[in-house]
Structure formats: C-alpha cells, structure tokens
C-alpha cells in the first residue's frame, strides 16, 4: 500500500512550487502580458492556499478582485498600449550588485527569523479553521472595522474619480 500522501502537505508543496515558478515567471518574462498571466497564476495558487488556511471568503475575493478585476485591468492596459518586449537593459550595476545581494540577505535573515522566532507554529490542516467564511468576516467588517471599511470606500471613490480625471484625454 502506497502511503496516502497527506493532501495538506501535497497541496501546499504543489501550490507553493507553482506560485514560486509563476513568481519567477513574473519577474523573468520579457513580455508584460506573460508577466501578468504569471501573476494571475500566483494569485490563483494563493487563493487556493487561502482556502487551505480557512480563508474561503478571501480566496473568492482574491480571485474576483485581484485576478478578475485588477489583473484584467493590467492586461487591458498592456493591450491598449500594446507595448512590445523590453529593450535590452542598460547595465544597471547598482541594482544588480547592491540590490540583489541585499535582497538575498534580507530573505535569508527574515527566513531565519521566522524559523527562529516561530519554531512551534501550528500545522495547517484544511478545515481546521473555519472562521474565514463570509458571515464572520462580514460581521467583523461591519462592527469592529466599520470605520476603516467606510474610509476605504471613500478611498476607492476618490481613486475612481482620480483615475477618471487622469485618464481623460485633455480636451483642449
């Protein structure tokens, strides 16, 4: 009997791998559309990870808002501007020589931190945490976080107006 692999572990590994690959694709693809689609891939896998973490509502929102709205907008703009591939880069020694090593150092240190400071985190099991449905989230959103919620709505309104004003072709 082949030991039934734990679906939680398997799912995580598959999704994480997929997310990382897509992430790499985002930053390495020459073309913006490819990057965008890779980003959708990251988001999709993250949505499933959210599901595994018990955040059902967020998973759906992740797909609807991020993948379905924001990224569509990105794709739309990319198509609209119809920009080709990037030109071959001018040498950016500063970013490469300083930025990347610093980034690796950053990643290393923060991973070290996570492992050192959080050695005994609970293990993730699908369905172990069920408070992520729409009802609890909505309840908290409209009670404790009502003010931020309203402020956010205002922010979105302003963003809409701002985007319209910005994108409008100047008439004169």
């Amino acid at each position, binding site marked *: 009997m082949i030991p039934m692999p*734990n679906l939680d*572990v*398997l799912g*995580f590994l598959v999704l994480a791998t997929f*997310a*990382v690959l897509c992430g*790499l694709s*985002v*930053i390495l693809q020459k073309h913006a559309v490819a*990057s965008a689609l890779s*980003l959708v891939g*990251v988001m999709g896998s*993250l949505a499933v*990870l959210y599901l595994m*973490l018990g*955040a059902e509502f*967020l998973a759906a929102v*992740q797909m609807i*808002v*991020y993948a379905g709205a*924001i990224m569509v*907008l*990105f794709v739309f*703009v*990319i198509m609209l*501007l119809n920009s080709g591939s*990037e*030109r071959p*880069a001018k040498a*950016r020694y500063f*970013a*490469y020589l300083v*930025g*990347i090593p610093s*980034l690796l150092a*950053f*990643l290393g240190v*923060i*991973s070290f931190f*996570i*492992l050192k400071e*959080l*050695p005994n*985190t*609970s*293990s*993730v*099991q699908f369905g172990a*945490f069920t408070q*992520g449905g729409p009802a609890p989230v909505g309840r*908290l959103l409209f009670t404790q*976080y009502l003010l931020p*919620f309203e402020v*956010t709505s205002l*922010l979105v309104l302003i*963003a809409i107006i*701002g*985007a319209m004003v*910005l*994108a409008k072709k100047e008439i004169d």
Partner: protein
Amino acid sequence: MMLPNAVPVSWYLILSAILFSMGVAGFLIRRNIITVFMCIELMLNAVNLSFVAFSYELKKIDGQLFTFFVMVVAAAEAAVGLAIILTVFRHRMSLEIDDVSSLKN
C-alpha cells in the same frame, strides 16, 4: 521522498517571504513600468499571504480583514496607477522606467 506529516504555518510565511523577495527583485531589475507595478502587486500578495497565515496561527480573522483592506486598496491603487501610466505613456510614448526620471532635476 519523505514528506512531513503536516505543514507548519512558518512554511507559509517563508513562502510569503520568497514571493515578496521576488517582487522586490522584479522591482529592481524590470524596466517596464507596468511590470514594475505588477511586481508591487506581487509583494502585496506575498504580504497578504502572511496575514492570512498569521490569521490561521492566531485563530483570529482580523488578519484576513487586513488582507481584505489590502486588496481593496490595491484595487484603488491599480486604478490610479494605471491611469497614471496611461498618462505617462501619452506624454512620453514610452513605458521604460528609465525614461521616466523627471525626479532627477
């Protein structure tokens, strides 16, 4: 292959850190404004993941709410940001981030 029996939350956090770093790396090396912008979204997503992971760890959904807000704000940001990119493109006919360096002077 030896698989562990369960995935600790810290793995999720590390995944988040990796994704975040990739976002930063993309920000550093990419030259197309839109791609750079997408790298920012990637970073936001990474952070969201850690929020949700912590929410799981702490068994409180406040973290998910933060994620929710991040998403909404990201939506607003994307709308405005893309509008700005459109305007920039209209004025400069270029999406190269190196060409947009008016800050220099």
